[in-house]
């Protein structure tokens, strides 16, 4: 396997207010090569904060602290805000959760994609538009011309998500952090979007951090899985071995899924053990 693209050691994310300190991520270490790494865990387990902290996109009053965040041998913590802006989008892209919040509601979808493209290349307007429509096509949007001229509220939830993906893939990043990129997509479109990402990983050697709470999907799509709970990594394994996971938390998540072939009256609900919070974080290196 190639060497690590991204190395993170002892990452903490804290939100301090007068009254209290919320620790969203508590000392996790992991690395990502030119592969597909899935991060799963329940809501609030710190998945998004992990993704955002790498790009230094944590809003005030959040604070990031880490022994090491290296990308491609470069120390990201040492970069200035200006140099960081160059890394963002250009080398590392982030598809954010909540496409509707991330898109500007009063600007046409197409203009937003073209702008994302033009910021990093010196393309002309017409060229940017061509590329944008091409990209919308690639993420399986029918009628890309109509969508190009729509406002965000005129597109369906799933289309919004694909628009975000198109916007993030257009500068051809080395590492893509995709935060629940397909949660609003139906399975067939989801598969095609994943195929696009897969192709980029296989052909261009892009690294992919795939944040999701769909365990089945992560198990079949990714190479490795990191399971987070309460800001820590409770377990890590090869994706195809996820079904045999040992940690009771992972088991609980797997059992909560409905299954087409095994109908039951009530779904089993996760029972949390307070001890899990205290368990030390597991390292998830390549």
């Amino acid at each position: 396997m190639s060497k690590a693209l991204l190395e993170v050691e002892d990452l903490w994310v804290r939100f301090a207010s007068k009254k209290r300190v919320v620790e969203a991520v508590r000392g996790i270490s992991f690395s990502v090569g030119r592969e597909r790494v899935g991060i799963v865990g329940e809501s609030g387990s710190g998945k998004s904060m992990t993704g955002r902290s790498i790009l230094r996109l944590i809003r005030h009053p959040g604070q990031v602290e880490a022994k090491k965040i290296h990308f491609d041998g470069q120390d990201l913590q040492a970069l200035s805000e200006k140099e960081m802006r160059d890394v963002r989008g250009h080398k590392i892209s982030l598809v954010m959760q909540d496409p509707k919040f991330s898109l500007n509601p009063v600007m046409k979808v197409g203009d937003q994609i073209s702008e994302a493209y033009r910021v990093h290349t010196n393309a002309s307007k017409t060229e940017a538009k061509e590329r944008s429509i091409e990209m919308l096509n690639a993420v399986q949007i029918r009628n890309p011309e109509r969508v190009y001229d729509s406002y965000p509220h005129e597109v369906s939830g799933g289309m919004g998500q694909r628009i975000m993906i198109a916007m993030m893939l257009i500068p051809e990043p080395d590492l893509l952090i995709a935060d629940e990129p397909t949660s609003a997509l139906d399975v067939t479109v989801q598969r095609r979007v994943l195929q696009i990402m897969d192709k980029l990983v296989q052909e261009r050697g892009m690294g992919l951090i795939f944040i999701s709470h769909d365990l089945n999907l992560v198990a079949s799509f990714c190479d490795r899985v990191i399971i987070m709970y309460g800001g820590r990594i409770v377990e890590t394994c090869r994706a195809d071995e996820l079904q045999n996971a040992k940690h009771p938390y992972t088991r609980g998540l797997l059992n909560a899924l409905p299954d087409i072939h095994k109908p039951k009256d009530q779904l089993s609900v996760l029972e949390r053990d307070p001890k899990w919070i205290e368990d030390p974080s597991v390292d998830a290196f390549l």
Partner: protein
Amino acid sequence: MSIDTTSHDQGFKGWLTSESPESRFHAQMVQLYAGWQSLVANRLAFLGFMIIVLLVLVAIFAPLLATHDPSIQNLKTTLLPPFTGGHILGTDDSGRDIWSRIIYGSRITLFIVALVAFTAPVFGLLVGTVSGYLGGWVDTVLMRITDIFLAFPRLVLALAFVSALGAGIENAILAISLTAWPPYARIARAETLTIRNSDYIAAIQLQGAGRLRIILGHIWPMCMSSLIVRVTLDMAGIILTAAGLGFLGLGAQPPSPEWGAMISSGRQFIHDHWWIATMPGLAIFIVSLGFNLLGDGLRDILDPKKAQS
């Protein structure tokens, strides 16, 4: 799930910061207290807030603070410099005590501010939200009218109104309000356009709420924060416009101690008796600064993006 290290307060403070209020009143108090805390935490905003509180207090207790009657003329004591003969800020050309006039003038300023602040934004909000929510020809008509008002410089339009209506403080306020609402209508409409397609509006439509109820009860609260910020920032400008009208002799009429009119009458003596025009000018400056600081701070405090998380 994440780790909180919360210090649980007891007693009244604990009640005010409770995470699960027990009644409607309690919930409002908790909200108010949270707002108050962020205001106090923002030093400059708090300074602005204190200046405005001071203005209100001065206006209320004017008779106690004033050392002289603001309108009694005394030809024996004309044009006294500050700190002479018991006149803290000196006297003007008619021998009236400037300190007392400024104190009483705060009432007029406050009157203008309060009246404009309660008419122009409310009217602008109404026009903007109705226009944005209903859309169609209502939107077209209302926005064209707004555009017409926006096309004139504010002071010029106010001047035109006052000359049509006749000089006087009430007409000046009316004129200022008439010229101040269009930008608020614009802001409110822009906000409404982003709000009206949201699911929470769809939800209340499904429950049978009428248009008026949706606009007043559901869209207004979402426009409030950006509007409050804008109004606060504009207050300085409104005070200045009022003063400008007073200065031109179209606002408050002498002998009323309106600050702008005071500057105007002090203008002729500006070279030899600088204090007559400077003192009310300083008062205008301080109050405008107060509103600006508060407005800036409120922008940070009320920012809906921040309120989200």
